[in-house]
C-alpha cells in the first residue's frame, strides 16, 4: 500500500466512508482537477503582477535561483486544524507541523508567515515567501503558474448542511436554487460555480464567516474540505452534518514559484523521508485520529482571556503605530503638496494635482496591493508593515494635501499683503503669517483625515500585517465568536477616534470665536 492510499484509508476511517463511496466520487465529474477560473480579485492581482513584471523586468536583474538559508513558508492561520492559533496565540496545526518537519529535513530554519488566502499565490510569485504549505490543492490551472511538490495529503470536497433544519437534503443536487457558501479562491468555489450553476454560490473570507451565516440562516449549506469541516464542526460544536458523498478528491501539494528546481527536488525528498519515517502518519493521528478532539493542543473554541487580551492589545499597538507613522509621513508630504496645489499653475502643479486625484480616486485596498506586490518587482524587499506605512502615508498625504490647500485658501489675501507691507520676505510671510493661520484652520479637517487613516489601517490585515483586525480574525478562527470580537475591535477604534472627533469639533468652534477666516 503506497502512502497516499494509506492516508486515504485514514481519511475514510475518519469520515466513515466505504470504498464504494470513494469510487463513486472518483467517477464523478470532478474526479480529476479540471480547468478552474480564478476569482476576480485573484485574476486582477495576477494581471497586476504581470504588468509589473513586464514594466520592471528590465530594471530588476533576474536573481538566479539560490538556496535560501531559511525556509519561508506561507499559510493562512485561519484553517483549523491545518493552521490556526492555539490558546497561547501561537500558530499551530497540521500544516504548521508539516512545515517544521520539512524544514528540519532540509536543515533550514523555518519562518512561517500567516497571510490571506486570496493573495497567497500572488505573494508567492512576487517572492514574499519560498513556498506555501497551506493545504493548497493541486490543480491544472495553478500548475500553469507554480511548481507543485508531490502531494503531502489527500482530502476531498464535502457538502455540509444544517443538521437540524435540513434533514431532507441528501446530496448537492437537492440544493438547486439555494445558497451555498465557499471560501473565496478555494477550489470548492470554482467547483460549485462550474459544476452546479443552478446553485447560488456565496463566497466568504473564511469558514468562520460561513459558519456564522449558516447559524444566521443566510446559507443552506457549504462546501469545504471534508477533514477541516468535520474537525471544525466537532470542535466548535456546530450543528452541521455532511450530506452526500465526497464531491471530488483533492491532492494537497506545496507550490513554489517557478525557477527553483533544486529546492523543489529537496522538498520532494523531504516529504518522502517524512512519509517513510512515519512522521506523516503520526501527524494524521495527532490531528485527525480518534483522540484528536481530546488533545488539548488541538481543541478549538477555547482561548484564555489573557491570550485574547494580549493578542488584541498587541494588534492595536501595531495599528496605532502604523497610523501614527503614516500620519507623520503623510503630513510631511502633504504640506509641500498643499502649497504647490495652492500656488500658480506650473508643470509641478499639474503633476501633484494628477497624483493627488489618482490616489484619492482609487481604493486604498488596491493601492495596498500595488505597493505590497509591486515593490518586489522593482527589486525592493519591504516588509508588510513597511508596505502598509508607505501606502497609508501616500494615501493620507493626498487627502491632507487638499486640506492644507483649502486651509491656505481660507487665509484672507490681506494677511499676506499686511505681512509684505511690514517687509517680511516671501518665506517669512508663509512661515509666520500664512502657515500658522492655515494650519489652525485646517486642524479640524486634518483630525478627520487622521480618523479616516486610523480606520483605513483595518485594511492592512489583507497583506498579513498582524494589526488588530487580523488578530481578531485569528481569535475568531478559534473561538467562533465574530460578533463579540469585532465589536471589541470596533470599541478599541472608537475609544481613539471619539476624542479626536470631539476635539475637532471644539477647535472649529474656537476658531470662529477667535476670528479666523471669516473676513
Amino acid at each position: 500500500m503506497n502512502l497516499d492510499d494509506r492516508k486515504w484509508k485514514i481519511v475514510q476511517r475518519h469520515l466513515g466512508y466505504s470504498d464504494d463511496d470513494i469510487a463513486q466520487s472518483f467517477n464523478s465529474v470532478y474526479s480529476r482537477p479540471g480547468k478552474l477560473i480564478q476569482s476576480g480579485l485573484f485574476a486582477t492581482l495576477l494581471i497586476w503582477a504581470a504588468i509589473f513584471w513586464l514594466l520592471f523586468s528590465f530594471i530588476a536583474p533576474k536573481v538566479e535561483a539560490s538556496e535560501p538559508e531559511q525556509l519561508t513558508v506561507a499559510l493562512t492561520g485561519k484553517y483549523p486544524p491545518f493552521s490556526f492559533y492555539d490558546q497561547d496565540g501561537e500558530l499551530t496545526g497540521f500544516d504548521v507541523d508539516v512545515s517544521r518537519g520539512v524544514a528540519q529535513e532540509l536543515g533550514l530554519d523555518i519562518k512561517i508567515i500567516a497571510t490571506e488566502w486570496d493573495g497567497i499565490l500572488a505573494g508567492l510569485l512576487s517572492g514574499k515567501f519560498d513556498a506555501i504549505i497551506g493545504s493548497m490543492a493541486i490543480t491544472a490551472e495553478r500548475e500553469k503558474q507554480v511548481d507543485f511538490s508531490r502531494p503531502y495529503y489527500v482530502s476531498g470536497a464535502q457538502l455540509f448542511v444544517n443538521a437540524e433544519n435540513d434533514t431532507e437534503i441528501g446530496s448537492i443536487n437537492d440544493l438547486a436554487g439555494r445558497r451555498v457558501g465557499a471560501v473565496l479562491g478555494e477550489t470548492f468555489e470554482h467547483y460549485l460555480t462550474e459544476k452546479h450553476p443552478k446553485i447560488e454560490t456565496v463566497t466568504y473570507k473564511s469558514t468562520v464567516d460561513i459558519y456564522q451565516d449558516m447559524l444566521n440562516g443566510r446559507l443552506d449549506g457549504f462546501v469545504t474540505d471534508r477533514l477541516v469541516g468535520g474537525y471544525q464542526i466537532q470542535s466548535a460544536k456546530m450543528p452541521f452534518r455532511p450530506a452526500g458523498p465526497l464531491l471530488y478528491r483533492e491532492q494537497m501539494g506545496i507550490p513554489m514559484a517557478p525557477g527553483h528546481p533544486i529546492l523543489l527536488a529537496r522538498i520532494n525528498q523531504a516529504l518522502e523521508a517524512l512519509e517513510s519515517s512515519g512522521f506523516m502518519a503520526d501527524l494524521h493521528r495527532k490531528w485527525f485520529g480518534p483522540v484528536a478532539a481530546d488533545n488539548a493542543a488541538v481543541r478549538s473554541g477555547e482561548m484564555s482571556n489573557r491570550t485574547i487580551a494580549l493578542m488584541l492589545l498587541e494588534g492595536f499597538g501595531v495599528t496605532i503605530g502604523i497610523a501614527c507613522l503614516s500620519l507623520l509621513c503623510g503630513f510631511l508630504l502633504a504640506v509641500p503638496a498643499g502649497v504647490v496645489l495652492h500656488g500658480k499653475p506650473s508643470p509641478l502643479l499639474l503633476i501633484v494635482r494628477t497624483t493627488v486625484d489618482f490616489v484619492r480616486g482609487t481604493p486604498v485596498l488596491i493601492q495596498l496591493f500595488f505597493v505590497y506586490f509591486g515593490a518586489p518587482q522593482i527589486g525592493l524587499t519591504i516588509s508588510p508593515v513597511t508596505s502598509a506605512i508607505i501606502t497609508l502615508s501616500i494615501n493620507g498625504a493626498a487627502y491632507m494635501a487638499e486640506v492644507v490647500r483649502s486651509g491656505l485658501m481660507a487665509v484672507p489675501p490681506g494677511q499676506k499683503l499686511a505681512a509684505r507691507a511690514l517687509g517680511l520676505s516671501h518665506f517669512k510671510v508663509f512661515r509666520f503669517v500664512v502657515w500658522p493661520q492655515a494650519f489652525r484652520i485646517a486642524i479640524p479637517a486634518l483630525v478627520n483625515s487622521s480618523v479616516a487613516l486610523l480606520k483605513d489601517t483595518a485594511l492592512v490585515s489583507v497583506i498579513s500585517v498582524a494589526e488588530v483586525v487580523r488578530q481578531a480574525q485569528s481569535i475568531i478562527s478559534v473561538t467562533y465568536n465574530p460578533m463579540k470580537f469585532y465589536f471589541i475591535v470596533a470599541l478599541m477604534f472608537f475609544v481613539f477616534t471619539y476624542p479626536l472627533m470631539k476635539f475637532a469639533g471644539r477647535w472649529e468652534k474656537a476658531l470662529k470665536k477667535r476670528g479666523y477666516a471669516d473676513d
Partner: protein
Amino acid sequence: MIKVTGLEFTYPDGTTALADISIDLSFDDDEHITAIVGPSGSGKTTLLQCLARFLTPGQGSIEIDGIPAISMSEAQFRSKVGVVFQNLNLFPHLNVLDNLTLAPVEVAGMDKGDAEREAMEMLERVGVSNLVRSYPSQLSGGQAQRVAIARALVLKPDFLLLDEPTSALDINTTNALAELLEDLHSSTNFIIVTHDIPFVRKVAKRAVLIQGGRVVSHDLVEKVMHLFLQQNENR
C-alpha cells in the same frame, strides 16, 4: 517727499484706473498730514496701492525722497513707507505685542526684548498699552486701529499710508483718531486716502482731489473740499 510723475495704471481687464497722475507730496513740521480724496472709483485706492508698491504702474514713476521707488530693495522701501489697511489685517493668531514685534524681530533682526520694549512704548503712545496680551478678535474697532497704526509705526517709516481709516469708526473714535494723528507727528508723515470730508477737515491742511484717474486739484483742504462738493452736486 514723495514725487509722482505721469503715473498710469490699467488693470488686466482693461479698466484704466489711473490716467495721468503727477503730484508732489511734500511735508514739513507744520504740515505732516496730506489727504487724498475722491469719489468711489476715482482711482484713489489704486494710487495708494501703487504708492505702497503692491501694484506696479504701467507708466510713470514714484520717487521717495529723490530715489525712484522702483530701484529700491524691498527692505529699503518697506522701511520708508508703511501701510495701515482699511480692514487693518492684524494677525489673528498673534497677540497685540507679537503683532508689533514680528517685523522688528524677523525683518530688522532686533533682539526680542528690545523689540518688546519699543512695542510697549509705541502702544503707550497710541493709548492701548493695557491690551498687550489681547488677541485681535478681542479688540474694539478703535482699539484694533490703534494697534494697526502702532504696528506700522514701530518700524519708524518716513511715510505712512492710511487707507480709509475712519470707515469702521463711530464719530467719537473718529475724533479720537484725529487727535492721535495730531499727537503722533514726529518723524512720520501721513498720507490718508479717504472720502470722509469732516475727518479730512479736522486733520489735514492740504488735500489732493482725484477724479477719473486724474488729479483735479492739489490745494488747501478748504479749497479742495469746496471743489469736491461742487462737483458732487453737479453730478
